[in-house]
């Protein structure tokens, strides 16, 4: 697969002291997802389109890409902004592996930003404005 040069990946891995069955429920049941992630209208069906609504007012456009119960869950994670420079197109994949003590969880987000200017897609609600200001400062010549 060819990827644009400005594709980036974030990987977070954790050993969770709970069974894959339980973790899977937290990852796929809307009322549980809302408790740890965001308000949503998720359904665990490939092709289902849904939104994640952040407390900071941002709305993410998502589409379910892969559902392998107890193993893999993947959905797109797009943020549209009127300024195209702040758009983010990405895919989030949760991979579960059963371990002796629970579950190893790997979260990978691979994203593509159309320009070098940085996205405000993060959820640092109160910091976003500040970060944008810093971003403007950073893009000035030194």
């Amino acid at each position, binding site marked *: 697969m060819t990827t644009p040069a400005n594709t*980036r*990946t*974030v990987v*977070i891995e*954790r050993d*969770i*002291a*709970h069974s894959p069955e*339980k*973790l899977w*429920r*937290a990852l796929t049941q809307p009322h*549980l997802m809302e*408790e*740890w*992630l965001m308000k949503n209208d998720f359904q665990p069906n490939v092709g289902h389109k849904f939104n994640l609504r952040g407390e900071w007012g941002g709305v993410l456009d998502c589409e379910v890409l892969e559902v392998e119960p107890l193993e893999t869950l993947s959905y797109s994670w797009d943020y549209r902004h009127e300024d195209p420079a702040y758009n*983010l197109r990405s895919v989030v994949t949760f991979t579960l592996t059963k371990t002796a003590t629970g579950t190893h*969880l790997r*979260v990978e*987000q691979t*994203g593509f*930003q159309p320009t070098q200017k*940085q*996205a405000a*897609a*993060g*959820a*640092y609600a109160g*910091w976003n404005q*500040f*970060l944008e*200001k*810093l*971003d403007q*400062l*950073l893009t*000035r010549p*030194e």
Partner: protein
Amino acid sequence: MSKAHDTIFRTLADPTRRAIFERLCRDGEKTVGAITERAGVSQPVVSKHLGVLKQAGLVRGRQQGRETHYSAEIKALAPLVDWTGKMTGFWEARLDSLEDLLKRMDQ
């Protein structure tokens, strides 16, 4: 959130310190005296803030004669404006909430 982010956020959370830092970003190198003129606080207070900024790697000092000239280390902010840095912090915090939820689900 990573330790580096944590330090930068904590350092810049103080409005006076942030104003000093933003001014150095905007106007370039300045002496403590020049910064104090427009900081609205006394010179010892400015020096203290500069010390904290320096420790966080956000400013550097250049000795010239008896005066130190301070300038912003804008590169130190790179991890914050990169979305991968932001998202790493985001996911770490979300997964903390997820683990809390899993604990509650036992009850």
